[in-house]
């Protein structure tokens, strides 16, 4: 396919990712939060594939596959299992109310674009403007982490951040070296397992995943 077309596609997908990020930021229900996360994975996979096709980078196919397996199938599955095991179906409680969060989010996006401006000027790849979006996604997920009160949404925010980084890696730089990608994937997986263990431990100790129980250690 032609470069320009793929470029447009990438931009489209980038916009889609940003949209999903906002959706997650505004999402109140955990289950749909997880689904959104899965969708993010899907879009990520597609974008990776597009880049791979357009640039004929062999290892990008692997990383696309990796993404599909890890971020679309395994992680959401683990999360769903957790939800069922811990039978937590509560809504997401936020520290700041949603509209404000959105407002801040928009600010962040503008900031991110400004930040990326000088770099996108000199980006040689077909996907110049995606870097800004990647930064935006990272910052948005960060914002999400620090506005969510419960443990699981925080983790999802963490994973979403990972996605943003991954997107930056693929789109802006045609993907990291494969070794690195594998390593990263491994870390994410292990991290996820450990989190799983954690949830159970936290649960059996505090019989809730509310982070308010975990504010004992302090100096005052």
């Amino acid at each position, binding site marked *: 396919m032609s470069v320009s077309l793929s470029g447009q596609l990438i931009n489209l997908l980038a916009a889609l990712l940003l949209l999903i990020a906002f959706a997650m930021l505004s999402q109140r229900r955990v289950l749909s939060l997880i689904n959104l996360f899965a969708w993010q994975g899907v879009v990520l996979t597609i974008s990776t594939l597009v880049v791979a096709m357009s640039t004929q*980078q062999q290892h990008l196919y692997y990383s696309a596959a990796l993404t599909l397996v890890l971020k679309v199938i395994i992680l959401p599955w683990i999360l769903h299992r957790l939800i069922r095991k811990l039978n937590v179906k509560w809504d997401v409680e936020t520290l700041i109310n949603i509209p404000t969060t959105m407002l801040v989010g928009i600010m962040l996006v503008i900031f991110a674009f400004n*930040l990326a401006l*000088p*770099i996108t000027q*000199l*980006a*040689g790849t077909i996907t110049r403007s995606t*870097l800004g979006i990647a*930064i935006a996604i*990272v910052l948005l997920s*960060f914002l999400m*982490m620090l506005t969510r009160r419960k*443990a699981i949404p*925080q983790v999802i925010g*963490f994973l979403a*951040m*990972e996605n943003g*980084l991954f997107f*930056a*890696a693929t789109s*802006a*730089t*045609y993907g*990291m*070296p*494969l*070794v*690195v990608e594998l*390593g*990263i994937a*491994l*870390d994410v997986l*292990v*991290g996820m397992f*450990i*989190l799983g*263990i*954690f949830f159970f*431990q*936290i649960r059996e*100790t*505090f019989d809730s995943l509310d982070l308010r*129980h*975990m*504010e*004992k*250690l302090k*100096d005052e």
Partner: protein
Amino acid sequence: MEILWLLGMPLFGGIFLATVGCRRFAPEVNAVFSFATFIAAAVLTTRIINDGPITAFDEQFFIDSFNVFLVALTAFVAFTTSLFSRPYMRIEQHHGRLTINMLRLYHSMYQLFTFTMLLALTTNNMGIMWVAMEAATLTTVLLVSLYRTPASLEAAWKYFILCGVGIAQALFGTILLYFAAERVLGPGGDSLLWTHLNAVKTQLEPTVLSLAFVFLLVGYGTKVGLAPLHNWLPDAHAEGPTPVSAVLSGLLLNVALYAVVRSKVLADGALGTNFAGNLMMGFGLLSVVVAAFFLSRQKDVKRMFAYSSIEHMGLVTFAFGMGGAVATFAGLLHMTVHSLTKSAIFFAVGHATQTTGTQLMENIRGLIKQSPTIGWGLMLGTLAILGMPPFGVFASEFLILTTAMHSHPWATPILLLALGVAFASIFAKVQPMVFGETDLPRLPHPPALVPVFVHLALVLLLGLFIPPYLAGWYQQAAALLGK
């Protein structure tokens, strides 16, 4: 080949201890593996000193005088800590705070943790370095929550989330680095090799590099424990088992700082300004001051020394930020003596808390009467960490302060204030713990404090006499960085 041994030993050891377990002798096996690792490190070190920097496995690994000294330090402290943890964990088990399975987890994770740190140090690939750093977090997070107490869980959770988020920033920084490198070196695995980057660092895109460095600094800085990214550190140190606190504070922080410094070298090359250095000095000063003021309000002994670690890391960061041969040398020296002294202190504290059964300082009194070795170990260690000569910490602080007075006089009043406050706070707490009366009986069996005094002896040596080869090695490293 030493590298293979170096990395293989702990990796295999971790898997072995996880699978086989060998319940009764696990501590000894653990110590044996650590010892083997130490031997490998020693061999490697001698080789580097003799015939300069080497790369291995088509440049995937790169060892120069800078990281080899950290490798040696890491392996050594890991070994002594394993010696210390042998009786310590046994006693914990007798006290019924740990089950056999927890111990199994502990031992295998201990080895894996060593592995990840050594990997992060030896690898030449900035990406792999990131992977190793993240892995180091993952291996230790379960150790922090080993006791499964609410407090330890909370600490571990914070540790995990904060460091995870931080490290994610570092990843983004790495990506940006790659983004910049790719345009010079072209795509492919080699563009993330530090040696290559270092070779072309002047051509790297300044704007990208500055951005990258910010992300890297925030990312790895979180693990170094620079204020205001430090909040996980005191919790994790206070709640984990003492050997873990010792290696966390003695080694992990060093490794993270190592990553920062490696990035700084690239950033300096690309920017040609002291931008990176100034940022590091700022963070360093802030950490020193904040930590110093935290110290005075501590009740938990391990927590207090955790803050002192933040303070010292801040000092080292400041030193590296200043740059220049002397300051960098001082920074390296301070890394060494700090990890030696601080781990020694944690050993002593560990025994003290075990014998008194509390970590609250106002309940610990008259150690010197109850067990002179613990008492003197703690007292001397504290004085050493407070920068009292003739201990080595003083040597590095001397160089750092005087250099600062020469090149950045504005910083010295802040440092003076912070060091004064730190001294006042820590000593006010430790003196009554060591001195004074106690109603506790003397210990039935004297605790094994060999590691403590070995460390202190080394620190003392470094304060009075730095062996020539060690000196040459430091200076190579300083010359490498201090541009």
